[in-house]
């Protein structure tokens, strides 16, 4: 049984932020959870899927984020409580429905958890989801520690039912993927019954049709809800103040930045000079509370990630109340006290306080700092990101790269996010020249594939993962086929949503809770649409290279599906297909005309250049035994032998 439900009320657990959110949802008695995997959000739905049976939940990994929000909303319309979780980019995907949903309102408690990634630790942008709350006009909550992540999630469902609107919770990587103490609350008895009532008055979303029409009428209702939200937020225990009654400087903060702010004040010993207003309800602002604190001082610092969202809303409120509270000096992102980009940390916040309060701070003595620099200068070579040992993507991109070289017409690959996005780096032989949103690789390729009318003769390739195929490739595939674009799509099918932890997708015959479901065959779908389809194994080097070259020549849309499970997949992990060795008598080392092809160019971490022997060798701890490097060594010095697995 999952540790999320096996302990009783009052149990002091150490939970990840995402686990705390999941526990909060369970304590709220949810019935439905849906999402699409994405770092740093995946563990919310994942943990709920593990307790689906015991807690009588319907949990699904939806095909994409928009659908996951629709699935969760359906539960709400049928008077159940539902949670939906996604990373920040997912909110962009869901945003079309989100706006309609804000207009129609909800019935059973409905909570959307958006996990942002300031600093883009596991993303290709650091886009923010907070603006969506303001854009579509729904309340926004931001937990600032792990207990709060749980308690606030539970309350979000009550709030949603009070206001009859979706409530958005915004987390960040340093909350979702950090862990801390959480005291469990009670898990309620559940006896939910789903029923969709639609025969009430046309204008009443609670008993009649659930629509955002008539727009003016429903938009006014939204503003009534927001007014109520402001009143509730003014009294919310999730908004706290610590510090002197009349601080010299007031820091207004939220989320993980609260912890950086407290740390900074502690290290600077500035507790008697600074007050901290921590807001858990960040949109709409609690107006009376914020006004009260603004009136206690003239200097305000706003500490937040990433864009100046809170800063702007506080400034608007300060301008509106200026007659009563006076003119303030604001510090934050707009004046450059804090950086406009990237994630914050205690040191950045320390330097902001240090500057404003004129308190000098040294993280280390200048002597030690200098010594550190000198001593460590040559001792920590950079560790560039790379594909894992045995990763089928390295093999796929090796063959794609070779095919493009042989073709010699400056062909290029359009891609999107996922592990294979790393093909923009040397580990993927730099073949990826375009990388945007999920599915955008093929959409762009569809556009490039029509530019022959303007003299463009470069071959156009696109790559996508198997989970991405269902998420966002189908519409651009239709587009490319329908418009006769000349494109080769390569589906890197590694049998799961690998980057985020092997969540199942519609191509598999198992769902989020382990039940058997019909899998949807990528090849069949592509053929039915009218694409020419080939299927290959990325570990077949010669075959893959030839297939890419052949398909590039043909007109229209061609799909090459390269199938090989991820090296970290549960069925493969720890099992080697081949025992690998470098035969020292055959490896000519530095003397070989290959110029160290295996370690200098292919550079799988499982290969090591032995400086003393001046030859390659296999690192047996790292090597995953995929056998591919044996196929690329021109001297035949890398040998492979079928491994005997117990």
């Amino acid at each position, binding site marked *: 049984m999952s540790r999320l439900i096996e302990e009783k009320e009052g149990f002091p657990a150490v939970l990840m932020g995402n686990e705390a959110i999941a526990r909060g949802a369970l304590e709220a008695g949810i019935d439905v959870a849906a999402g699409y995997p994405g770092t740093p959000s995946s563990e919310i739905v994942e943990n709920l899927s593990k307790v689906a049976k015991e807690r009588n939940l319907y949990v699904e990994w939806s095909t994409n984020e928009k659908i996951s929000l629709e699935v969760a909303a359906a539960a709400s319309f049928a008077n159940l409580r539902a949670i939906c979780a996604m990373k920040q980019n997912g909110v962009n995907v869901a945003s079309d429905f989100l706006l309609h949903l804000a207009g129609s309102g909800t019935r059973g408690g409905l909570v959307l958890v958006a996990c942002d990634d300031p600093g883009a630790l596991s993303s290709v942008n650091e886009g923010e989801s907070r603006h969506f709350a303001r854009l579509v006009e729904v309340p926004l909550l931001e937990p600032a520690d792990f207990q709060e992540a749980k308690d606030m999630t539970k309350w979000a469902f009550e709030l949603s039912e009070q206001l009859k609107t979706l409530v958005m919770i915004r987390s960040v990587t340093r909350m979702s993927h950090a862990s801390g103490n959480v005291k469990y609350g009670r898990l309620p008895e559940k006896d939910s019954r789903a029923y969709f009532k639609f025969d009430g008055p046309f204008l009443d979303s609670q008993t009649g049709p659930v629509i955002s029409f008539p727009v003016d009428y429903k938009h006014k209702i939204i503003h009534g809800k927001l007014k109520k939200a402001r009143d509730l937020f003014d009294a919310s225990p999730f908004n706290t103040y610590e510090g002197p009654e009349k601080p010299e400087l007031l820091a207004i903060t939220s989320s993980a930045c609260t912890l950086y702010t407290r740390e900074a004040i502690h290290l600077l010993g500035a507790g008697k000079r600074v007050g901290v207003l921590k807001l858990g309800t960040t949109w709409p602002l609690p107006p009376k509370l914020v006004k009260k604190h603004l009136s206690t001082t003239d200097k305000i610092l706003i500490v937040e990630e990433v864009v100046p969202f809170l800063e702007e809303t506080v400034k608007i409120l300060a301008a509106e109340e200026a007659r009563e509270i006076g003119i303030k000096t604001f510090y934050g992102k707009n004046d450059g006290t804090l950086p406009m980009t990237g994630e914050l940390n205690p040191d950045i916040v320390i330097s902001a306080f240090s500057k404003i309060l004129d308190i000098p701070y040294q993280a280390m003595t200048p002597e030690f700092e200098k010594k550190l620099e000198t001593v460590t200068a040559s001792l920590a*070579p950079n*560790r560039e990101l790379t594909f894992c040992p045995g990763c089928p993507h390295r093999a796929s991109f090796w063959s794609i790269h070779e095919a493009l070289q042989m073709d010699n017409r400056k062909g290029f690959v359009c891609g999107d996010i996922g592990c294979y996005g790393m093909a923009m780096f040397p580990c993927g032989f730099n073949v990826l020249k375009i990388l945007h949103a999920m599915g955008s690789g093929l959409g762009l390729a569809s556009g490039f594939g029509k530019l022959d009318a303007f003299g463009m003769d470069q071959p156009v390739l696109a790559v996508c993962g198997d989970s991405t195929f269902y998420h966002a490739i189908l519409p651009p595939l239709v587009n490319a086929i329908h418009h006769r674009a000349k494109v080769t799509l390569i589906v890197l099918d590694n049998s799961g949503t690998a980057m985020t932890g092997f969540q199942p997708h519609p191509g598999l015959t198992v769902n989020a809770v382990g039940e058997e479901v019909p899998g949807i065959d990528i090849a069949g779908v592509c053929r039915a649409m009218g694409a020419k389809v080939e299927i290959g194994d990325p570990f077949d080097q010669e075959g893959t290279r030839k297939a890419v070259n052949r398909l590039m020549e043909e007109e229209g849309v061609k799909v090459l599906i390269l199938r090989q499970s991820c090296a970290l997949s549960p069925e493969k992990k720890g099992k080697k297909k081949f025992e690998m060795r470098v035969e020292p008598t055959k490896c000519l080392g530095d003397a070989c005309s290959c110029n160290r092809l295996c370690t200098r160019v292919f550079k799988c971490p499982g290969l090591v250049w032995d400086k003393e022997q001046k030859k390659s060798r296999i690192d047996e701890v790292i090597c995953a035994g995929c056998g591919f490097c044996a196929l690329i060594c021109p001297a035949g010095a890398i040998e492979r032998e079928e491994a005997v697995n117990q």
Partner: protein
Amino acid sequence: MKKGSSLKDPLNIILAGVGGQGNVMASRVLANMLSLKGFRITIGETFGMSQRGGSVMSHIRVSATSTWSPQIPRGKADILIALEPIEAVRVMRVYGNPEAKVVLNTRPIHPVGVIAGELDYPALENIEKGLNSLTPHVWMLDATEEAMKLGNPILSNIIMIGALCGLNLLPVGITEFKAVIKNFFPEKHLAINRQAFEIGKEKVT
């Protein structure tokens, strides 16, 4: 920290290594051991992209009273457990101080740049000399070698936790370890993990 305890509050521990070495698991085991003793714990983890052969780091804050930032401020690491030698240097460069205690697994994992011949991997004796010039408290052991003797290199993370406990730097030991691993590993793996813990302990005492 606790009444009668001489530990710093917050006490800052960094567990560093390379994606795939079981860094996250080790930090959670250690943090849960400390939580059993009643401490408040915050763990900050860097994973996701970093899983793919990159540097991985967990920050553990231990306190009697409060939740601290999941990121440790510069120069404030009290204890550093490194599953890979140059990762110890990388962490020291940002979070080190002259009082830091460093426990280090000597087995290198070469970065891609080293494999490609673009960068040099420093000699172990230079790493040792360098670290020793920064802090007098450095312990080194070949945990991967010991783990391979046990049949699986991944056990090096638990050997390192054992070593840390053997050095008596924290008020936890085998009792807490046994209690915690029950929730982390399947029954059939408990014995080998206990063995790995004991080996780590022996190697430093």
